[in-house]
């Protein structure tokens, strides 16, 4: 069965510093990988996704992620964090449920705090 591990429960960075959030997955086939962000009291917003091709994917809000098959990782990065990036970040892997639908398996999430 597929699983997603986000090793860091809580990360604090200073505004303007670089950021890397870790994600490791377990899945037998080529994974569909996602990063979502959830601000307090809000739903989930898609940051970026990986299905195939270029292993470095660009997303919204200046985020990028790199898929490394050898390490089963899909880490999220941002070169310079803004105070508005403070939120909960979820890594997820999607597997086909049949008939065109998918099931998302989420990691437990990483809470990002930003110090002004």
């Amino acid at each position, binding site marked *: 069965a597929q699983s997603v591990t986000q090793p860091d429960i809580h990360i604090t960075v200073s505004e303007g510093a670089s950021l890397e959030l870790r994600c490791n997955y377990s899945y037998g086939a080529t994974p*569909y990988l*996602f990063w*979502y962000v959830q601000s307090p*009291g*809000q*739903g*989930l*917003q*898609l940051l970026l*996704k990986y*299905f*195939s*091709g270029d292993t470095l994917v660009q997303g919204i809000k200046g985020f990028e992620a790199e898929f490394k098959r050898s390490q089963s990782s899909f880490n999220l990065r941002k070169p310079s964090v803004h105070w508005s990036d403070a939120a909960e970040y*979820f890594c997820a892997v*999607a597997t*086909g*449920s*049949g*008939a*065109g*639908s*998918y*099931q*998302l398996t*989420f*990691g*437990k*999430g990483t809470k990002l705090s930003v110090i002004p």
Partner: protein
Amino acid sequence: DTEVTQTPKHLVMGMTNKKSLKCEQHMGHRAMYWYKQKAKKPPELMFVYSYEKLSINESVPSRFSPECPNSSLLNLHLHALQPEDSALYLCASSLRDRGRDGGNTIYFGEGSWLTVV
């Protein structure tokens, strides 16, 4: 436009009430989902509808009853809920991307905050 709209945003209901959560998307997506999210936890899948047919029910209690009237709408009917059912209920939808990556992307709504008293 990647919008999934959920109403109401907040709902307070008693344990004997009957209420409904509504979800709407106009992206032509043919798979729609209900997730439940408790505080400080990731979302948990409840139901999946594919082409308006229920394809997955993750052992959800019968006090939650989903309905998909058409390809754009998804409802979650609530009856005789318990206080532990208080949570954020998220609707999502998906369609296989038509781009060369051939993948599928799942889009979420803003959620409905449910409090059972």
